[in-house]
């Protein structure tokens, strides 16, 4: 945007600012956070955080932006430089460009999904699909190998169209492009959202399952659990949600506000835009995904699966329940509102870079827009091609999470303590169309920095035991999650070979035993689903339980059903490994101490009784020391072996050892992921440094002009 640009109307500015804040998170992140953090009670820390952190930060950023615009600065490096005279501030301002370039790179990709899905909805692409097919449709859409060539054709095509659309709008400028889109997109978004929210209220009990009632979904979101107010992680989650929803810490608000005149109101404008975002989040966002999903899939399913991907993997399936016409309309509205939410945000993200290049290097608007497009294309390509390898997540974490928090904390320190809260407060009140309560002056100085500082602190290290350690900066830098999984696999791989050999030996021996006694071992067969054939199915209480194996009192090992997504479950692997270790230990004990350790009458007797009960039509109570049939088993110390490793169980263990090659593949994938993750971080660091260098060059040019 050239320095002669300005907003065409106040309403346009507010809709653009609200559009900057309103995004996919309003509809997807807020409800998921609410249900995970106390339901209805979440709204209390949420609104408190909005009052004590969200609103002050909005006023801080709006006033910093307008202040910087007075000097012809439309991006954070030199906006901050104006407020704090030390050189460091312009480099801290680099965050306000870096964050936007990083986020826009993957955000436009998500935006392109919504565009594709909007079109696919009206063309009936999801008609008749079950939930698994809808989820699979998305997976193949982003899958690099799905098209048979080494990139997802449709996904990339849609991304290029979306990017081109963004660049075209940005090239039209503030009032000619961004404002016009905001005036259409925001009302459409609200209308579409209202339609879906009203529909959610009317769904009610669909009868699809016991808990399939949209009102249960509303209840799930809004039922207050007051005990959660005492949980610091809930407050942390609420503060984090406010942070992301209001879109502070990015540099976009500064940029938009820099096109205001020095006496234009910012106090009322900031309130209007900020509360509009809250309306979309709390009123509309909370009323769509969760209630509709619960209405058709049930509360239990939603509790386990609620998250971002529901937008694409679940909602089309749900809309299909509404008949051919209504489902297409609903899909169009849903993905349409997400597209509008996305595009108004991505346009805002493009402006800081453009403002910087136009201010400092006198680029034209068109040139800066086109170059931005190429930069986004280059940065986005890894997130598209290597989506499954964690690049997308890395961009989101470092630029969309960490960067924001660091910048917001530093800017509030700058505003309140370096620039000075008195001067800052005068700036907020200049031209104000509302009376700004003085209370907020002291909140901005004393409370907001503590709030943002606390979020920053807890994002570094998991001080709270209830935090997810792997989502903190320190653990991320160490790749702790990948290392944990690799260690698990390495530990596990040591086991199956020894188990396999011993299992083979015992299997052989059992065949011999059974043939010697003329017993058909399948009489005591256990199928892979841990059901015992014969009459004793209900008579085997478990003495020792692992998650994968159940030990009956007589030593029988029963396999529990193996979940289909076992490969992804560390908990499953841990339990499986523990079970295998235990089995291996038992096998080793058998090899060494068969007669001594295992001939325990309290165990053996019931075993033998059960064992022989099915074979002999006569009496069921047998004294092993007296019964001639049992004697050979005891003499050879094989009773426990027989009882432990009935043929079918044995087969299961062999099957488990076959797990090894699958783990080998998974191990290689994890190592590859580590390379991509580290590579992404290096790329982002290089970009940060490059922007800092450009700021340095711009500064030197300014100095040269001053002396000239």
């Amino acid at each position: 945007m050239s320095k002669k640009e300005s907003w065409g109307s106040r309403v346009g500015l507010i809709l653009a600012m609200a559009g900057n804040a309103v995004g996919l998170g309003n509809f997807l992140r807020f409800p998921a956070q609410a249900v995970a953090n106390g339901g209805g009670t979440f709204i209390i820390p949420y609104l408190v955080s909005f009052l004590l952190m969200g609103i002050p930060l909005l006023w801080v950023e709006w006033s910093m932006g307008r202040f910087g615009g007075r000097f012809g600065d439309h991006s954070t490096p030199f906006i901050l430089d104006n407020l704090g005279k030390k050189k460091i501030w312009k480099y801290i301002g680099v965050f306000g460009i870096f964050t936007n370039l990083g986020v826009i790179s993957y955000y436009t990709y998500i935006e392109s999904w919504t565009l594709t899905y909007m079109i696919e909805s009206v063309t009936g692409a999801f008609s008749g699909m079950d939930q698994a097919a809808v989820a699979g449709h998305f997976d193949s859409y982003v899958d690099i190998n799905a098209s048979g060539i080494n990139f997802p054709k449709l996904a990339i095509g849609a991304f290029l169209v979306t990017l081109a659309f963004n660049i075209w709008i940005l090239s039209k400028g503030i009032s000619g492009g961004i404002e016009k889109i905001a005036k259409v997109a925001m009302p459409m978004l609200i209308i579409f959202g209202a339609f879906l929210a009203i529909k959610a209220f009317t769904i009610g009990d669909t009868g699809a399952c016991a808990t399939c009632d949209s009102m249960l979904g509303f209840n799930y979101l809004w039922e207050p659990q007051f005990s959660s107010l005492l949980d610091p992680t809930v407050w942390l989650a609420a503060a984090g949600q406010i942070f992301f929803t209001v879109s502070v810490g990015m540099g976009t608000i500064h940029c938009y506000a820099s096109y205001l005149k020095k006496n234009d109101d910012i106090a009322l404008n900031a309130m209007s835009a900020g509360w509009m975002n809250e309306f979309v989040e709390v009123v509309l966002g909370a009323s769509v995904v969760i209630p509709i999903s619960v209405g058709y899939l049930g509360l239990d399913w939603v509790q386990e699966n609620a998250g971002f991907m529901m937008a694409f993997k679940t909602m089309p399936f749900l809309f299909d329940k509404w008949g051919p016409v209504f489902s297409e309309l609903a899909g169009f509205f849903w993905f349409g509102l997400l597209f509008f939410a996305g595009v108004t945000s991505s346009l805002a993200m493009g402006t800081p870079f453009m403002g910087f290049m136009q201010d400092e290097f006198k680029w034209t608007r068109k040139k800066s827009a086109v170059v931005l497009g190429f930069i986004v294309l280059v940065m986005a390509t890894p997130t598209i091609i290597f989506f499954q390898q964690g690049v997308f997540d890395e961009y989101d974490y470092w630029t969309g999470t960490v960067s924001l928090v660091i910048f917001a904390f530093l800017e509030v320190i700058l505003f309140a303590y370096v620039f000075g809260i008195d001067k800052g407060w005068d700036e907020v009140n200049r031209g104000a169309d509302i009376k700004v309560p003085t209370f907020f002056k002291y909140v901005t100085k004393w409370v907001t920095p503590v709030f943002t500082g606390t979020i920053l602190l807890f994002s570094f290290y998991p001080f709270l035991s209830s935090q997810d350690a792997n989502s903190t900066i320190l653990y991320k830098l160490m790749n702790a999650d990948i290392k944990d999984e690799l260690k698990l696999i390495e530990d596990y791989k040591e086991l199956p070979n020894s188990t396999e050999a011993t299992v083979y030996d015992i299997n052989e021996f059992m065949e011999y035993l059974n043939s010697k006694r003329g017993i058909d071992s399948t009489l005591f067969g256990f199928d892979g689903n841990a059901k015992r054939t014969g009459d004793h199915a209900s008579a085997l209480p478990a003495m020792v339980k692992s998650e994968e194996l159940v030990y009956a009192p007589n030593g029988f090992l029963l396999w529990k059903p193996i979940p289909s997504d076992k490969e992804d479950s560390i908990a499953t692997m841990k339990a499986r490994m523990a079970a295998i270790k235990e089995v291996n230990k038992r096998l080793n004990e058998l090899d060494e101490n068969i007669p001594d350790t295992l001939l325990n009458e309290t165990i053996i007797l019931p075993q033998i009784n059960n064992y022989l009960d099915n074979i002999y039509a006569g009496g069921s109570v047998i004294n092993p020391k007296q019964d001639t049939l049992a004697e050979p088993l005891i003499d050879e110390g094989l009773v426990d072996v027989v009882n432990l490793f009935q043929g079918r169980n044995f087969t299961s263990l062999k099957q488990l050892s076959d797990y090894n090659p699958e783990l080998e593949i998974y191990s290689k994938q994890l190592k590859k992921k580590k390379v991509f993750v580290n590579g992404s971080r290096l790329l982002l660091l290089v970009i940060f440094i490059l922007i800092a260098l450009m700021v340095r060059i711009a500064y030197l040019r300014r100095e040269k002009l001053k002396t000239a």
Partner: protein
Amino acid sequence: MTTSALILMVSTQSLVAIITFYFFFKVLTVKPKEIEEPDEND
């Protein structure tokens, strides 16, 4: 839906909606300022 959930939902959403409309209405109805001396954005 339980009573407490209904009360919380209705009161919160009403509060947010009222505040939002109040500020937006104020934006629409506030008198524009007089034209002032130009700055860099002119």
